[in-house]
Every structure is written in structure tokens, then in C-alpha cells.
């Protein structure tokens, strides 16, 4: 069984392809048909293209602060292929590919980072929670959703994501404990991208890894190469089957590297070296899966160049749609505060309308 073999006490890491895209672990290689793997690669490529363009839109002043995903695409890519329609995704804020897989649109995501609440409502995406900024707080919702699934005797699985910094918050520990005590179907995924803004992993915890924290709560945990699509797929699939079968939660530590800044407001040159960045560059998830596909003659640079150009047009189209969204209206401030709006709020809105009329008359 995978979780026994990769006991976090020994700090083992599940890895299936090496940095050159060669299979080094037949035993745990998921049995996937080439078409699915190729589609996963394309999804990751689309997410990467959109992510790079998002940073550039922000730099052009067309969008506000944005948290780049660069270098972490395999985690969301694998999630996108493991999650079923009936499964829940409880995101943090750096899982672009997984949101898209769950039915969020790029237009919505862009709208969120342009400053519209509706961008995080993901109105047509089923079982996708909004982006969660208060660190680790969303994990408790995952445990609660897990309870509801068990209560209703459903077969859904909850996938809940947090970063390495988030594992220091009380909410992380409380969520793991509750989920394990209740034995509910939650797969907790820690994107260990080595930094909580500027704070490196070694200052975040004295544990040898994050996966080991699961053992104290009485649940299995596994450390996985988060830049290896196959390893992530395999671990997520095993965890999902384990959880769905009524065994309770699993913690997956996905070892990765945030190649970009924490957000577009951050400057990583302040706290890490160029050498370190270059070292991690070798493990880039797109490069590795791309090499695997090219070795198998399933993909080529020519195809990649053509499709990236198509993706850029698609991303631009959705960005422009977001840019031409209707102007934010006064009523949008109030309308969704309550199901049943208090009278006082209606008055506040009316009073402000009077001010707007006065202001108009001053012109």
C-alpha cells in the first residue's frame, strides 16, 4: 500500500518521472491512456499561458494584485484529472488550473483580480468554493463538507488546498484533527512551494517534512514530488479512493517551487538567490511532462508553438470580455450582503443615491 511504503517518518518522496521525463518508478505509475496524459499537459499549458499573461496584464495596469502559479502547474493539473464532477474543491488562492478544471472561467478569474466580487462566485462551477485569502481557514470548511457527505451517505470526496505557510496556522491542525476524528472523506493538499511570502520552509516548521504532521492526527500522509504530474496523479487517486471508501482523510504534501513572486506586489530577489531558482528550474513540471510526451512521440515543439498561440488568443479574448464587464453599480455593494436585507441597509443605499444626484448636479 502506497501510504505505508512512503511513510513520512523516513522522509521518502513519491516520484515517478525524473527531471528528464523518464519513468523511474513503474510500480506506482498510474495506468493512464496517452490521450488523458496529453490532455492534462495541454490543460497545464493553458493554465501556464494564462498565468504568465495575467502577470503581464497586471504589469500593464489592467488588473490589480495577482498571485502567480508559475512552476506549480502539475498539482492543479493532476487535481483536474482526479476530481470527478461530484467531488468538491476547497481552494486557497494558487490553484488556477484546478479552478478551471472545476468549471471556473478565465473571465471570472480575471474579473476577481480586476476587483469584482462576482469573479470569485464561480456561478456555473459546481462544488467549487470561492478563493480563500485568510490562510488555512478554508480547511475547516472542507472538514465540515466532509461531515455532510458522510451524513448524507454520499460518495463525494473533498479536495482542500493550502500552502506550506498555512500549516503553521491553528486552523490547519484543527481541520486535520476534526476530519480524522470524524473519519470524513477529505484529501488535504499542501502546496509546499518553499516560501510563505519571504519566509522559507525551514523557518516555518522544525518537522522533517509536512506529511509527517498527519501521523499525529491518526491519518496517513505522503510526501510527493509536486512537480511530477504522474506522482501527483497517483497520490491523489490513492488518497481519493482511500477517503471515498470510508477510511477517513489523507494529507498530501506536494513538494514544489513558486517560481514567481508571492503576488505581483512582492519582490523575491529580496529573500532568495538566483542559484536556488536555477536549481529548481531543473524540476519544472511542464518541462518534465513535455519531455515524457515528446519521447513517446505524442508531442512536439511545433505542436506546442502552434497551440500556445491559440491559447494566447483565447486568454486575450476572455481578458477582454472581463475588461468590458458592466461597470460596478452601487447596488452591487449592498445586494448580496444578506438573503433578507435589513431596512437600514436599504436606507444607506438610498441616502447615497441622493449624494450621487447632488454630485451630478454640481458638474
Amino acid at each position, binding site marked *: 500500500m502506497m501510504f505505508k511504503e512512503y511513510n513520512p517518518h523516513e522522509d521518502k518522496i513519491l516520484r515517478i518521472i525524473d527531471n528528464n521525463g523518464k519513468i523511474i518508478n513503474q510500480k506506482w505509475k498510474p495506468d493512464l491512456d496517452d490521450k488523458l496524459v496529453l490532455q492534462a499537459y495541454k490543460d497545464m499549458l493553458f493554465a501556464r499561458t494564462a498565468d504568465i499573461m495575467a502577470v503581464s496584464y497586471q504589469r500593464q495596469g489592467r488588473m490589480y494584485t495577482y498571485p502567480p502559479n508559475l512552476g506549480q502547474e502539475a498539482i492543479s493539473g493532476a487535481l483536474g484529472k482526479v476530481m470527478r464532477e461530484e467531488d468538491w474543491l476547497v481552494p486557497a488562492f494558487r490553484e488556477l488550473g484546478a479552478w478551471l478544471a472545476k468549471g471556473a472561467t478565465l473571465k471570472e478569474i480575471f474579473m476577481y483580480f480586476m476587483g469584482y466580487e462576482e469573479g470569485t462566485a464561480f456561478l456555473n462551477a459546481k462544488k467549487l468554493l470561492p478563493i480563500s485569502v*485568510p490562510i488555512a481557514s478554508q480547511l475547516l470548511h472542507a472538514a465540515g463538507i466532509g461531515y455532510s457527505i458522510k451524513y448524507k451517505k454520499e460518495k463525494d470526496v473533498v479536495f482542500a488546498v493550502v500552502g506550506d505557510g498555512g500549516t503553521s496556522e491553528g486552523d490547519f491542525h484543527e481541520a486535520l484533527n476534526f476530519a480524522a476524528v470524524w473519519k470524513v472523506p477529505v484529501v488535504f493538499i499542501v502546496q509546499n512551494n518553499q516560501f510563505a511570502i519571504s*519566509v522559507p520552509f525551514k523557518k516555518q516548521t522544525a518537522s522533517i517534512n509536512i506529511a509527517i504532521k498527519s501521523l499525529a492526527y491518526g491519518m496517513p500522509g505522503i510526501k510527493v514530488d509536486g512537480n511530477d504530474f504522474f506522482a501527483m496523479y497517483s497520490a491523489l487517486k490513492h488518497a481519493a479512493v482511500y477517503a471515498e471508501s470510508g477510511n477517513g482523510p489523507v494529507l498530501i504534501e506536494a513538494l514544489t517551487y513558486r517560481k514567481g513572486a508571492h503576488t505581483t506586489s512582492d519582490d523575491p530577489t529580496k529573500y532568495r538567490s538566483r542559484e536556488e531558482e536555477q536549481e529548481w528550474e531543473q524540476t519544472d513540471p511542464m518541462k518534465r511532462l513535455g519531455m515524457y510526451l515528446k519521447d513517446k512521440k505524442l508531442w512536439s515543439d511545433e505542436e506546442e508553438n502552434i497551440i500556445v498561440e491559440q491559447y494566447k488568443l483565447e486568454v486575450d479574448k476572455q481578458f477582454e470580455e472581463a475588461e468590458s464587464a458592466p461597470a460596478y453599480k452601487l447596488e452591487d455593494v449592498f445586494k448580496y450582503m444578506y438573503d433578507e436585507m435589513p431596512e437600514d441597509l436599504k436606507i444607506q443605499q438610498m441616502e447615497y443615491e441622493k449624494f450621487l444626484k447632488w454630485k451630478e448636479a454640481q458638474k
Partner: protein
Amino acid sequence: MKVMNMVQAINNALEIKLAEDPNIVVYGEDAGLEGGVFRVTEGLQQKFGEHRVFDSPLAESAIVGTAVGMAMAGLRPVVEMQFCGFVYPAFNQIISHAARIHNRTRGKFKTPMVIRFPYGGGINALEHHSESMEALYGHIPGIKVVIPSTPHDAKGLLISAIESNDTVIFMEPKRIYRAIKQDVAEDKFTIPIGKAKVLNEGTDVTVVAYGAMIREVQKAMVLAKKSKISVELIDLRTIYPIDKETIIKSVQKTGRIAIVTEEPKTFGLAAEITAVVNEEAFLYLEAPPKRIAGFDTIVPLPRGEHFYMQSPEKIFYELEKLMKF
């Protein structure tokens, strides 16, 4: 004298106190090497060492809770919360311990600590990055709450806060972190906690504001002047304890009061000041006190934020109505 913005003035206050008192430690998320997300503590770790200025793991409750322990054991921690919207996990430690230890131990243990954080809107920020929640802290018995509006005041008030044997919540208006520059004395000086400042003397209406709203009121005063409205502007500087005397004296003279804040209106600081005026200067009032505050809504994301924030025009509009009452 040296020209400083608020970030530099706060950094300067921390530097002076770190140099002067070996019991002071400064920590928080990203507060060490990087110097905080707004660079307020920049350079301090390099100057004073990692044992005195450091990055903590990411946990607000732990940051405040360990500070309470340090303070009881004789240190004087100055901790940073990254944003006003991220303090909430630390509430238990603030309310149940930082605010209560002194009383529960009949003064045997003191909690001389400062919890600093940026607050307020108007910077096109992400969700949870624009709140102005000072009323939550003002409502907690056992702590003091300070909000500066200028680099000079930020320095003098922070030094007082660090020297206070009580726990002080020090809220920094991030919208004007770098927007206002002024001459600030390089040597140590203090500004007393609990004292408001009359920034402008006037005869028609008292306006009480603080933090980033001072600048907006000053802009509104240009419009008011054209309409021959004479405004007496009070910078509150300390949220709790409120300087009632300065407010009452002013209202006794002007007969009118407006309070300008970024907070949601209901149960806010403006309501408290209104109550103080009603209790202590009711017979001097020529019009009901006016709260110029945010809506009782979440601060909208950037595209809708302008509706929520107080603009000079909005403040002037309300003052004009108040004069016509």
C-alpha cells in the same frame, strides 16, 4: 530634522527603541529579513540581529500569544500583524489574555506589548486587505488603541506605545504610508496616548477624524471654505482612551459635530463619539451629531470601493447638510 514618510518614521521609532532597550523584540510574518510586506521593519534585523528582529511562522494567534508570554516574563515585544483583516485568529489572545492579565493578577503581571498592523482602504487591494476595524479593539476593556495620521505623530505615538506598560494596538493607515512626507525630529520624542490634537480652529462645525481620513477632511475643508463653513478639525490620534475633553470643548464652541471614519457605520467609533457628545454637551448642540462613515457592508473590491470610501465631496456634502439643519 529629516524628511520622512510614515513607514520611515515608524521604522525610525523602532530603531530608536531597539537601540535603547535590550528587552525589546520585534517579530511577525515576513517582519525579519524582508522587513515586512510594507517594509516598515526594513533593515532592523540587519542592525540588531535575528534574535531581536525576526520572521515568525505564519500564525497570528501564536504571534500575539507568545508576545503575551514574553511580556509577562519581562520582554517588551512589538509584533506585526500583516493586515487588519488577518488579525482575527489572534482575537482570543488579545481579548482573553493581553487585555486581562493585568487585572486577573491584580497588577502582578503586566503586558507591555504593542500589536502593530496596517488598516484601511483606498489602495485597490485584494479581499480582506481594506478593513478599518478599530471599533472592535476600542470595545475591548484592557487595551489601548492608537491611530496616527502623520509621520511625526506615528513616531511619537509609537514610542509612547512601546514605553507603555499596557498592551497597545497600533493601527497604521496604509493608504498614507508613503503619501505624506514631513520633517520629523531624528531624536527620540514622545506624544502622549489619550490626547487628541486640534489641527484647525473653526467656529461652525467640529469634525473629528483620524488616520487616513484626516487628509480627506482637509480636502473637504477647501470646499467648505468656499461655502463659508468654518471647520474645527480634531485629529483623534488615540481611539481608546478617547480624549473627551478636547471634543467637548470644541462642540461647546461650534454646536455641531461630524465624525469621519472608514468603519462600517453601525456600532462604530462614530457612534461612541456621538454618545459622548450627547451625554456631555447635549445642550450645546444645534444639530444632531453626524456620522460620516462607511456602509454596513463589506468593503467592496476595487471596482466598487469608491462607493464605500469617504471622498472630500461626500464629506463636504454632509457638512453642508449639517449646517442647513
